[in-house]
């Protein structure tokens, strides 16, 4: 009997055998059975059990790998339990822990446990740097990286979701362990293919915000395994995480701004009324956006709405209020969040504060974050790039100058402040909201789902965790291509 040959081909497994194996389909184009790569371990298990013929398995091509051993890091009790239940679940599954609970440590311990080449997929370049630094220090090895112009493969490699999607065909058979940081990104249509194109039998997902508004998190059990461990922030608050307060500060638009706002907003509102359009859900809004590509008046209405929102988001009054906050918190380490880059630069120019946006290069990001940690800079202005993952335990005050209504974004932004650090008593998050504008609704939306009483001086509650279904915002100008 002919042996069965297995090989890897750009995200799939080619099987040359006399009989069909599970999950495979006959591919006439090449004259072999083909199966998606993520069934690799199932196929091997089937072949081993069925004992049909000799197996020549040339699928995996693992880079040379030293013993992977952590130097000194100790796990906290809950981290140990999390890793234990992942191990017991067949080394597959998602661990849900609040931000600041030390997910990187669990990831590194998983690498030690599996002791095989591992790849960590992260959403941003900042997280790529952070993981690389931590793994390099803790495991004492050189770490490979894919993303931001780099492509070096090593026994432990960190890679952005974007690069992993583009290069899954060539990286997919090089690792035994696959870790997705901020795994809630994975179910997106394109990123899903990363999980499907990798052969790695061991898979771990890490996140603080598991559920998605579009319910696509239901895909995760199939791709990497279901939730194997979960803790809420209140389980850890005080002992492991910083206590915090959230305040909403209403600011009045200047009178010219008010005038402009009203003028523009009424163009939008009148159009909707005239055409009997109601925007009650993101889907309604989506339909409206589609209408704008056919109907020039709809587009004018949309542009007017965006101008109005931009006035509310970027109000001079907010900048003035920010000045007061900066003055009254001379000792705090402050993160300032905005929705758009324009405002980032405006604030940076006005207060001479370092900024990080998605166009900021690697060197500058590194300098800014390092300077912030060391106390050289007292604040960072940023749009969305710092929302996720990045560790700045020293940050004690957050100011949301503008943002979407997404409670996931809100939770993540708050998460930046929750890491414990010496001398930090309690974290504070201040939202600046233009009163009498649609922004008040945006603000409520992002905080909906939090315990009642989060509006002012609410301690310990964690918005977004309770309802379990974070709300996405309606698309603003990003989707319609506003510069």
């Amino acid at each position, binding site marked *: 009997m002919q042996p069965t*040959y297995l*090989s890897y081909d*750009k995200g799939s497994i080619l099987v040359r055998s006399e009989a069909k194996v599970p999950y495979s389909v006959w591919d006439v184009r090449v004259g072999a059975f083909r199966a998606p790569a993520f069934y690799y371990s199932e196929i091997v298990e089937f072949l081993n059990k069925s004992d049909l013929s000799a197996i020549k398995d040339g699928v995996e091509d693992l880079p040379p790998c030293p013993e992977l051993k952590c130097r000194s890091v100790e796990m906290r009790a809950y981290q140990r339990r999390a890793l234990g239940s992942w191990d017991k679940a067949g080394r597959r599954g998602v661990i849900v822990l609040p931000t600041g609970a030390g997910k990187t440590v669990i990831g590194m311990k998983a690498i030690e446990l599996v002791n095989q080449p591992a790849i960590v997929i992260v959403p941003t370049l900042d997280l790529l740097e952070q993981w690389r630094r931590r793994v390099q220090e803790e495991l004492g090895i050189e770490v490979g990286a894919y993303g931001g112009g780099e492509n070096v493969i090593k026994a432990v490699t960190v890679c952005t979701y974007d690069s992993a999607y583009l290069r899954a065909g060539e990286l997919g058979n090089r690792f035994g362990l696959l870790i997705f940081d901020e795994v809630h990104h994975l179910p997106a249509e394109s990123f899903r293919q990363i999980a499907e194109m990798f052969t790695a039998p061991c898979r771990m997902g890490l996140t603080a915000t598991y559920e998605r508004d579009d319910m696509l998190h239901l895909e995760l059990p199939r791709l990497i395994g279901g939730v194997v461990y979960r803790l809420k922030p209140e389980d850890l608050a005080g002992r492991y995480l910083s206590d915090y307060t959230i305040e909403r500060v209403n600011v009045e638009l200047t009178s010219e701004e008010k005038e402009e706002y009203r003028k523009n907003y009424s163009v939008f509102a009148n159009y909707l009324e005239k055409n009997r359009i109601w925007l009650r859900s993101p889907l309604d809004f989506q339909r409206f956006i589609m209408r704008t590509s056919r109907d020039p008046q709809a587009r004018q209405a949309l542009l007017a709405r965006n101008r109005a929102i931009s006035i509310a988001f970027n109000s001079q009054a907010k900048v003035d209020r920010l000045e007061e906050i900066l*003055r009254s918190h001379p000792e705090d380490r402050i993160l300032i969040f905005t929705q758009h880059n324009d405002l980032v630069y405006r604030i940076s120019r006005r207060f001479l504060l370092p900024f990080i946006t998605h166009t900021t290069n690697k060197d500058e990001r590194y300098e800014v974050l390092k300077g912030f940690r060391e106390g050289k*800079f007292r604040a960072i202005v940023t749009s969305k790039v710092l929302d996720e993952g990045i560790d700045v335990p020293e940050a004690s005050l957050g100011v949301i100058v503008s943002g979407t209504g997404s409670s996931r974004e809100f939770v993540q932004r708050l998460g930046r402040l929750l890491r414990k650090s010496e001398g930090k008593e309690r974290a504070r998050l201040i939202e600046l909201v233009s009163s009498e504008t649609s922004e008040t609704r945006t603000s409520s939306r992002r905080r909906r789902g939090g315990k009642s009483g989060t509006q002012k001086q609410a301690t310990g509650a964690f918005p977004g965790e309770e309802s379990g279904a974070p709300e996405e915002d309606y698309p603003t100008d990003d989707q319609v*291509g506003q510069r």
Partner: protein
Amino acid sequence: MLPSNLLRAKIAGGKIRPAYVNVDPETVALAERIIGAFREGRGRKKGELLERLKEVENEGNDFKLVRGMSALLERRCVFEVDSATNPMAARMAVFEKASKAKATSVDETKAVLRSVSAKLGVSLESLEKTLFSDLEDELITRDFEPLSAELLIRQYNLSLTQTLLFKSLRVEFSASGNWKNIFREVKRQGLIYSVEKQDAGYRVSLDGPLSLFKFTERYGTSIAKVLPQIVTSEKWSVKAEILARSRGGRVYAFETNNKEVEGLLLSGAEERVHASGKQAGAFDSTVEERFARSFLVSYGSLGWALRREPEPLVAGTHVLIPDFSFEKHALKVYLEVVGFWTPEYLQRKLSKLKSIEGVDMIIAADESLACSRLERLKGKAEVIYYKKDVPLKPIVEHLKERESSILREQADRIEKDSIILSGDVVSLEDLARERDASLESISLALQDFRPGGYARAGNLFISEEKLKEMDEKLSKVEKLTEALAIIESSGVREEEASKVLDVLGYISVWEGMEIDKVRISKPSLRSN
């Protein structure tokens, strides 16, 4: 190719079609306005250019059209930071100082700037100018390579078609030519194709490995990159399935051909010609190029004509796209250099090869790129393994072997008995031409051929009467130059003339370096 959000397309009756723009006065005027904005933007801030483009947009023009054209033109620009000092270093200095001073009011920040500028030894104005000079809006348009409105419109239409193909699940196309470049691109993009013979030509369908399991637009971008090569062909047609996620994942058909969009699309060849110098770029020194160069240097004298990227070879539902062909004596040997490979891949290639008769092909496979640890395919003479560079020796050996065996074959086919010489001087070249054989094979076949009444001198057969006549004339002269003139006057070429002297038993006597002074003599006569 454009950003996906700038796609303009129309859907009707289950079909989708890019919203092409015509080369009409209205669109030309718009294109010229946009080109003008870029032209005038030279030497100014990018922010000003963007402002101008926004104005064009706000005049009631289709914003996606304006932005699409602008995106194409932006690629023809060089933007630069306008600052003598490093903006980032300046920022870091200023921000650190401001943090230390806890500056918040306008006066306080001004003071920070003043003190840092003094420390850096620059003026306050130049520090303020430097500080954010690397932000997009602050960049200066150093250069812009314009193009005509018509070309811009046609390039836009091509890009629009490509952008639509981003969302394609699979594509079928046919083309009347340019196969080499088409398949080269298909190969480069890692797509899977199958070829079907149809009437006059071939129909090729393109998708990727995972298309088998699910509808995926993963390969759309790669497919889009092949399009310029397809439309470069004189006649072509394209049929694609386009997935519209915004419409709940419905699939629409897109079909077009050269007739339908005549004059609307820029072809790939045109695109390269009109590409700005920046985009055309320099070729990398690839394995293939290094091979070609060293082959010509070391073995160019062997007389093989080396051709890069010869025509594709069709084998059943597949094509083979060799990288080189070596041609000599109606003999053609192909070479394909394989980068990334698996044993299956090579096996498949070889079985494809077997299915085309009479094709001689060598496959060079990169050992270091073998993506499998399976043992190599042994005992396949056609496969050569290499590291870093394709070795010349085994290939040259293969060529020599093929050459001598084909010569032997050809020589064997020449029937010596049938050769009848006529005339005073008959050259091997003439005989080869008469028989449509190579010179090498004729000379191999006639190595020992001694026809009556003729003597052989080099590549010539000369009648004995003619030789006698020449000998008489030669006995009357002394100088070599005169002797050669006599021989050449009988219809013998210069390079063969000295061979005739040899045959007649003459030797040249050199008395110095000048040819004029060389004498000829016949030692045999003297001794008689």
